[in-house]
């Protein structure tokens, strides 16, 4: 579970996130959508501890990320919006490094990596240097590394970008399974059809403020419109 309480972040004069309140419950996939520069990535970075909020707090499974970052991070898996990884490591070296940080034992690790690498069809390439990977392969490597310790909370920033259709399908199925097991998935996307089909609840952020949040039915409020038309109506000035 993720609780974002009155979080604010400014860069100079620009307020990126303005008093955001949000809750990602156990057992749900929460889609975070908004136009470019709305504050999605800033919110996600504050959630995983890459940025410190100027005000407010983020709690992951009841643990304050700012006050006890190590415990909070232990139960989170994060995939950034761009897969910037160490190009001079092999895929497996990078995954091993991440797994060591999460203290994943060898036996569990081997099985888990095999399972994830097979699912994403990356097994044969794990011994190669990351510099030889395509964008999609790097994204898959980051996904495996983020999920290898079986975190309860997944925080994924645009995770489908660069993935081939099969890998995207696999990831979506994994997200669904993970949520159905009582865990939380918090992810941002620009693909509204994906959000519509996959998410239990959706939050729409515009200019750093949460302007709408709820299930798709709640957002539509009885009207027979798609998430896309609802979103476009909402962000139109």
């Amino acid at each position, binding site marked *: 579970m993720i609780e974002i309480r009155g979080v604010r972040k400014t860069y100079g004069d620009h307020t990126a996130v303005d008093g955001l309140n949000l809750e990602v419950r156990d057992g749900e996939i929460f889609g975070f959508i908004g136009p470019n520069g709305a504050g999605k990535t800033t919110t996600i970075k504050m959630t995983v501890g*890459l940025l410190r909020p100027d005000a407010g707090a983020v709690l992951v499974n009841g643990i304050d990320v700012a006050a006890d970052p190590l415990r909070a*991070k232990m139960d989170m898996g994060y995939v950034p919006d761009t897969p910037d990884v160490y190009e001079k490591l092999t895929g497996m070296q990078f995954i091993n*490094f991440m797994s060591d*940080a*999460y203290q994943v034992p060898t036996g569990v*690790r081997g099985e888990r*990596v095999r399972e994830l690498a097979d699912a994403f069809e990356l097994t044969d390439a794990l*011994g*190669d240097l990351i510099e030889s990977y395509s964008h999609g392969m790097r994204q898959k490597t980051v996904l495996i590394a983020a999920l290898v310790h079986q975190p309860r909370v997944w925080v994924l920033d645009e995770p489908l970008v660069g993935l081939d259709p099969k890998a995207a399908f696999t990831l979506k199925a994994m997200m669904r399974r993970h949520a159905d097991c009582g865990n939380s998935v918090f992810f941002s996307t620009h693909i509204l059809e994906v959000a519509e089909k996959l998410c239990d609840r959706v939050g729409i952020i515009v200019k750093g403020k949460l302007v709408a949040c709820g299930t798709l039915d709640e957002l539509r409020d009885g009207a027979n419109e798609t998430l896309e038309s609802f979103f476009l109506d909402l962000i139109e000035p």
Partner: protein
Amino acid sequence: MISLLRLQLMVGLNINAWRMGKKRARHVGMFLLVLLAISPSYGGWVMLQVKAFEFLVAGKVPLQDVQLAGTYAMAMMMALLAGVPVVYSTLLQSRDLSILLPLPYRPWQIVSAKLLVTYAIELIACVALCTPTYALYVRHGFAGPADLPVGVLAMLLLPVLPVAVASTVSLLIAAIPGVGRNRWLWIALVLSAMLSLSLTLSMLSGTGAAGEMTDIVRVRMAQMERVGRLFPGAAFGFRAVTSHGWQAWMQLAAFAGTAACYAGVALLVGQTLYLGPILRGGEGKRRRKGRKAAVAVQTGILRSLVNKEVACVLRDPSVAMNSLGGYISLPILVATYTVMKVQSQGKVDVIGQLMAAAHSPAFQEHMPYVLTGIAMGLAAFGTGSSLFSASYSKDGKRLWTEKCLPIPPQTIMVGKFVAGLVLVMPLHALTVALAVAVLPLHGLAWLYLAAVSTLIIAYSALIGLAIDCMRPKLDWKDTVQAVKQNLNVVLSMGLGLVPLALNVGVLVFCAKLGQPAAVVYAGVIALNVGMLAGIAWLARRAAGALDRLAL
């Protein structure tokens, strides 16, 4: 085709930098600095040519053709040796093939456009080298105005042969399966080429003394001309510039034909070995061949951090060269001093002078002070680099991994510290062993040397890490920018001088009080241990800056 050639020249020679407002001022400044830096040696070269021709004319020595041909041959050798790094950069390091290959150009056109950049760079160097000699050749009446067009055209054709050979050889090496594209191999090749180039140029340096002139003109220039003739067909070029009338034009035509053959072979090899594998799609397969099987094994987080750091340093030659450059400079210095000794026939013997000083009675008399100075010098090999002071910066935007992992920032700093020591210590041990072997040390003096230099390396490393953690340079496109153009490296070196100044202070204090050697040794060790403890405490606090870092 013209637009392709223009584009490659624009990119290869960075011509836009000369046109754009702010960048232009910087580039003009840099250009002037480079001119200033090379002007003494270039001035020396011109003066040597002036004296050589005066010697030839005054003594009526009929070797003016050898002088000119030797200079042309030397320019060809220079273009060949300097061509290897230029070819590596323009062909093997270029990243624009994904843009060029889909365009409606034939492969040979792309290769020729890239080779043109190499030719243009080499031409500038050849013209700079040959023009003074040719001008003097004309001025002293060995060639008339009618011969000038042939001289100019021969000079334009001159770099074609060495550039073609450099590119053909480079591409043949790059095509060797498994090792051909290894960056370390190329660094070794480029360094060897640069060293050979420096030796070639130094072969023809001199003060201009009369006795030396005989040696330069009669022996060394003749040798150089013979070396130049190793390029089949180069003799046509030499004869073109030293002949007159229709004979000169005939020789020039033969030289042009030879150059066309060389260019044809280079284009054919380039098309086959450079673009061929890419067009066939074999590049990726070749890169992935022979990798170790991937195994998922748990290790402690500190070890994992150290392994990651070591791999990231050693597998990136630009980072590795900058990190361990101090130690690489040692054999280069020794080689340079040895060459200087041989060239000066023993008159300039830096190593010999140092050895004599080390075996003098003064060395024994001031042993504690000299030894501390040597320890500082040995430590400088390990600390005068970006290994520690750009350790966070070189991670760049990838620092998100460490930041979002459940690892305390202090552990991350310890990981970087230990990784640095893992890389530096074997080389440091080697330099200490070398110093112990050549210096007349008694008793436990070697231990003092090792201990003090290691302590200095340790706290200098922590200073570098602390500074880089507090203000890392994370926005870069290439790791070279992170490690070379990083103010933290300079700041760390500057701040690292403070503890060294304190060491000097202790030595001066002890010397003034006339303290015995044991007290000096104990004082220096106590100071450095205390400094390590204090700096470690400060670095631990500085490590927390990673938490506050916005990514």
